[in-house]
């Protein structure tokens, strides 16, 4: 069974890259353009993993992660956030909000797939 992934990013080009990389790796990809949209997509379906940007208009990634952790239906769903900051504080905030892991931008498609594989487990 192919794992299904929700990607949340306000940048069309990043959405495109992640979509290409992940669908080439055999995953099913659903896209959302910001935190609000992400929660709406979560409302409508189940995902095996969520990949989200933090810095987004409308609803940022941290808020979305906090909100989704309140939803019993999505307990334990891994959440990977994308960040350009190597800043430990941001990571700590995201972790406190309930994120599982992160990927530092810029990333190449392979490292994205690697991280997704890592977090999904075998």
């Amino acid at each position, binding site marked *: 069974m192919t794992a299904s992934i929700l990607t949340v990013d*306000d940048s069309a080009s990043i959405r495109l890259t992640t979509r290409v990389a992940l669908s080439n790796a055999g995953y099913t990809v659903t896209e959302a353009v910001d935190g609000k949209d992400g929660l709406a997509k979560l409302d409508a379906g189940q995902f095996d993993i969520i990949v989200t940007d933090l810095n987004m208009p409308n609803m940022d990634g941290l808020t979305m992660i906090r909100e989704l952790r309140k939803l019993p239906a999505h307990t334990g*769903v891994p*959440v990977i956030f994308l960040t350009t900051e190597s800043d430990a504080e941001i990571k700590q905030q995201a972790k406190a909000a309930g*994120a599982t892991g992160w990927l530092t931008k810029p990333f190449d498609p392979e490292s994205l797939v690697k991280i997704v594989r890592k977090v999904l487990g075998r």
Partner: protein
Amino acid sequence: MSFPDPIAVFRTEAAELLEQIEAGLLDLNVNLGDKDQVDTVFRSLHTLKGSGAMFGFDALAAFTHHCETAFDRVRKGEVPATHDLVGAVLEAKDHMRLLVDTPTGDHEAASEALLASLRRAVDGAGVPEAPAGPSTTRYTIRFSLPQDAMANGTNPLGLLDEMRDLGDCRVVADRSAIPPLDQLNPVDLHLSWTVELTTSEPRSAIDDVFIFVMDDMQLEVTEVQGEPQTSAAPAEAEAVVAATDPAATTPKPAAKGPATVDAKAAKAAENVRVPAERLDELMDRVGELVIAQSRLSQLAGSSGDLQLRAVSEDVERLSGELRDTMMVLRMVPVTQLFSRFRRLVHDLANETGKVIELVTEGETTEVDKSVIERLADPMIHLVRNSCDHGLETAEQRLAAGKPAAGTISLSARQQGGEVIITIKDDGRGIDKDRVRAKAESSGLIAANASLSDQELYQLIFQPGFSTAQQVTNLSGRGVGMDVVKRTIDALRGTINVVSRPGQGSEISLAIPLTLAIIDGLLVRVGSGRYVIPLAAVEECLELSVEEDMRSRGRSFISLRDSLVPFIRLRDLFRTGTTPDPFQKVVVISTGSERVGLVVDQIIGDHQTVIKSMSKLHHDVGTFSGATILGDGNVALILDVGHLVSEGQQQEAQLRAAG
């Protein structure tokens, strides 16, 4: 699965981001304390850097990084926003555009210079690189994860699997902390593990396994010397990563901008971005449909089959609606166009030392995208001209009793099938005497020729015409205005100039809303059929035999007490046929100039899908394109601008001849 070219997507996005950055910076320049704009600029820089690096625009990413860092400090309140800083980033923004357009070019020196000035504007701070760790072979690893790790998506089995991937592995789980079943929450984690790992991977590979949980977990990695032991003592701990108290770092509340920002973003999210060429394809198809539909109408009309007629009328209505919808799809607000002038005027004010304010109105007016793109250059010329020639210096203005700041206003409004774009300044106005003197000296007009104001102003659009006494960086090189005229002509638009000495001048561009389909008047000349753009048609009248006879040799008709030159299309096209007994005159105009076209028959209005002429016919002046008629024949579309100027020349020659 096929995807659009990511590089192209990135370029489009980068262009938008750069525009946002520029708009944000310009707003910031007006109000340095505007926190929202600082955030907007920062976010755009941030995204530009992130996606730039991802698509291999390394120079762009590296360069943008410094600007982002600077803005991050502003955002955090470490550095105040200053005009110097905003100016430096504005210049840097232009450089970023260059880095997007030509990523492989040699921009290093320019980058360095800009960064130096940025550093002068803010104190730059270097970021030290993190050193890498050494590697060994045998470890004892004890670890336990936070209780909520599983709820937050970490799978401990995955971590163990990853360690098994590193090498030979023995795992022992400590189950002592598991509570009685009735107190057990299935998503809580109570286990801890001891792992003995033999690996050729470096030490950092173990850290990589735990990278995401490192900060919240208990992890003890011990390098074991010699033979593997059954139960390793925690001696010689190479690294003990203690858990940090999650409560110590209070998460920042996710405060966001005001509700209006939310609404704007929501609106953007509902949009679908489509490459313009796909719209063009769709437009082509709609065009073909319109042609097929008019064939159907013709068939239905001649068959007398009532049912067929009913269907044909339905198809006609639907294709008309489809066409209208299609037009709307291609429309974009002129905001896009106007917003670039804020920067231009800002720069021009700096270069000329004048104080210039830009006022825009009617930004929501919508125009076909391809029209907008082609309007940019002529408008830049006109605005430059206004800033350079039109507006006076602050001292001159004060002396003339005007406010020190000059105003350039751009406005757009729709009027019928046209959009009127006006570029207005409150400067000194066009010096008619100088225009006349210049035109006479360069032989454009005869000395003492009697010209209306409008005719006089139109002279500034002649090639090689410039009244500037000094050539400046901005304008006055005599190129530009004729290019403006040519571009507007190509858009089938007209230019109207109004000027009041000492009060300023106003140049209006009237441009058709769309380029692809026009309403035309279908006429017959000899055996050929031609289309005249309906927007240019003023009236149709009959050329009486007397008038025809009287005007032989002198091609003028009198129209409500004014003489209008006319062109016999039958002569122009050399049809060699005998004229119809009752010839018609179609009076067409561009702005203030009129000319009559004598045709054999007026067939009626015709919705025309414009097909451009081949390259071979590029320089044919009389026609601007072609269209396919309902019966499959081709009709040429007359170039109104060209015919009118031809008619006017004819008039001028006659006047000169006396």
